[in-house]
């Protein structure tokens, strides 16, 4: 048994951390947060050059062909640095969907562009409030044309293409849903940026008006593909969340060591010590669940659905917990715009919702555990 990343993978993590420390300091995040740029173009370019965008894309399609464990360690670093780029939408959602369901031609068209940083992709799934569900998909696809509205779509306003979930039937079954690929530059889609709790990452409303689209994967299998994509993205995003949680914990720890009150470091008060210990506990449990998710993802194990849900729940809560208590450790200063604490708090709460809510994943986990037990 080696329930850990390999030395090479750890080296890749260190490399990513070093790269991001240099290219993505907090002030780079703030440039996007403050609305000066929709995303960090320089960083995006750099990530492509480092080979990070295509790390899990096969060499045949312009990627590094390394694999998903490699992508996991990079995801962790992206989360730790709060990288203000469309990484999760492009790499975890769009690329995974194409890898799973795309034709050879579709793969040849988009994957190399993703790996090289030329194309930003996204998944247009949600239509207002609610969680992933076939019932909530109203956007219609008829005769290769899409009509309807998707929101929120992560990075929808800067995407070059989108994987769109559309209704192609009305039987009330999952098979009513099919996936389509839309070239955003080809017309028929209007994107509107939407204000969100984490402005360092964009959200948009996409309005499809007789928009031409090509099918992605077999008709009627859209929701089954989406489920697989969401499980895969859940593991990857969980690594981002664990990266963020760890960084928030570190910030809190450092402040507790430096800050003096009542003549001694605040980290010498048990109230603060134990708050930080509890943060460490939740971050560690989340990390361990994530490792199991990484194993399941990288081996395409039948345990993936269960492992993904566990990683997602655990990492979502760990990041929220660490981010909010990092502010608490910082006291008043933590509640200023100037300190970076709120950027982690914003990201933690935004990421918590991006693949469906905590309640949704709780329900999913128990469903999957039952199925496994019944099997």
């Amino acid at each position, binding site marked *: 048994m080696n329930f850990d990343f390999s030395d090479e993978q750890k080296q890749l993590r260190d490399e990513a951390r070093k790269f991001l420390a240099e290219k993505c300091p907090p002030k780079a995040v703030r440039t996007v947060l403050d609305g000066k740029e929709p995303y960090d173009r320089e960083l995006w370019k750099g990530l492509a050059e480092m080979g990070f965008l295509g790390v899990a894309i096969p060499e045949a399609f312009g990627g590094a062909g390394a694999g998903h464990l490699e992508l996991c360690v990079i995801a962790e670093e992206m989360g730790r640095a709060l990288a203000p780029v469309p990484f999760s939408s492009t790499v975890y959602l769009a690329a995974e969907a194409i890898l799973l369901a795309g034709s050879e031609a579709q793969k040849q068209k988009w994957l190399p562009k993703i790996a090289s940083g030329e194309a930003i992709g996204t998944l247009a799934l949600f239509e207002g409030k609610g969680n992933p569900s076939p019932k909530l998909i109203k956007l219609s696809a008829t005769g290769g044309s899409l009509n309807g509205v998707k929101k929120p779509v992560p990075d929808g306003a800067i995407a070059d293409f989108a994987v769109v979930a559309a209704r192609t039937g009305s039987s009330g079954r999952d098979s009513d849903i099919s996936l389509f690929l839309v070239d955003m530059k080809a017309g028929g889609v209007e994107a509107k940026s939407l204000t969100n709790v984490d402005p360092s990452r964009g959200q948009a409303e996409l309005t499809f008006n007789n928009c031409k689209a090509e099918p992605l994967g077999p008709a009627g299998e859209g929701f089954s593909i989406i489920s697989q994509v969401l499980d895969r993205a859940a593991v990857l995003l969980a690594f981002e969340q664990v990266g963020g949680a760890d960084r928030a914990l570190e910030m809190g720890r450092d402040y507790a060591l430096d800050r*003096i009150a009542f003549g001694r470091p605040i980290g010498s008060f048990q*109230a603060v010590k134990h708050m930080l210990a509890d943060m460490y506990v939740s971050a560690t449990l989340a990390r361990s669940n994530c490792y199991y998710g990484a194993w399941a993802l990288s081996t395409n194990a039948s345990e993936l659905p269960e492992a993904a849900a566990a990683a997602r729940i655990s990492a979502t809560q760990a990041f929220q917990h660490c981010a909010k208590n990092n502010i608490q450790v910082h006291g008043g200063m933590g509640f200023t715009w100037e300190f970076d604490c709120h950027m982690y708090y914003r990201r933690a709460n935004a990421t918590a*919702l991006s693949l469906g809510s905590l309640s949704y994943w709780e329900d999913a986990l128990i469903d999957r555990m039952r199925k496994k037990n019944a099997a």
Partner: protein
Amino acid sequence: MNFDDTPQEAAFRAQAKAWIAANAPRQYEEELKNSSLGRTQLKGANILEVAKAWQKKKADAGWACLHWPKEYGGRGATPIERVIWQQEEGAFGKLSSMFIIGHGMCGPTMMAFAGEEQKRKYLPPLASGEKIWCQLFSEPAGGSDVAGLRTRAEKRGDDWIINGQKIWTSGAHYSDYGILLTRTDPNVPKHKGLTMFFLDMKSPGVEIKPIKQANGQSDFNEVYFADVKIPDAQRLGEVNDGWNVSLTTLMNERMSIGAGVATGFPELFEFCSSLMLEDGPAIDDRDVRSKLAQWAVKASGLKYTSMRAISALSKGERPGPENSIGKLVAGSMVQDVAAYALDLQGAAGVLSGPEDAEATGKFQAMLLRAPGTRVEGGTDEIMRNIIAERVLGLPGDIRVDKDVPFNKIPTKGRA
């Protein structure tokens, strides 16, 4: 055990109700009712002006600072009359937020320590809202350790010269006066070298910078002092006795109960009552119900705790540190409630614009404002210490700096 007014209380309530019905700025009532944590503006009106006008109207009719003596602009009312007034004033009471510090902390401090002439000069315009006061205690180096402040006051002739920086000053930018706690002797232990003053906020050398908060708003300021001159006549209490003076201020803060603390529960209950989830109304979901029930009993527990405190007040008992409960419980509850409201919205919960978000983005605003509630006016940790020490009688924390001269206390944890 009853919720009934005594005949006197009923008469007072009727009088207050009638006056409010006839005089309150009804046009803003709906908006004020719907404002919740993290959002306090009025659309199409300057809230400061509206608030000042309402306060002046109240003062002219004898309804301002009810518990203050008449000669200083109050009504000489009983504590319970003050509570009844607050109940009747309802949502319009939200207009008083910019006066809370002045009326609740600065005024009582002036009453206890200023000269008679000063009181007659400064208190009535404070009561009527014509002049706004702020409180300058917190500092970057201070935080929970208020007495760790570093702003220096040095005697020069009949004046004191102030240099330093304050932080977290609510309303400094629209305040006319402030009470200011300074260090006058750094060679003695920290509690023993402080002195209190009041000052004109327009004094030369006072510079005010708004603090941009984590939620993007600016409710507080930094205030810088560069050779600001304060006449010795504006000293409150003895030189180096400022810590005791500040305790009066802070104790008076705790007296102002009944204002109620925001828990977010009524908003969440209303939201769940109308929200449709995929399988039906949210309020029919057993998971939602269990969570709502947990918050419901906290919210009602706080409500009735406050009523018990009001009853004690009406019997002439002094509210104690038990009231720290409200802040402690509500602070993290509002954060949890807001996060859960977002969770119920699913992926769209991330949207925060009033047009795009569910419930006009009320819960998103609440979530972003919430971290402040666990810190401002005393952190959760300080509140638990207060309860443990002053209610339960447990020992204070070990104070390593108690007998150390202030200028010998370390300022940085790691070299």
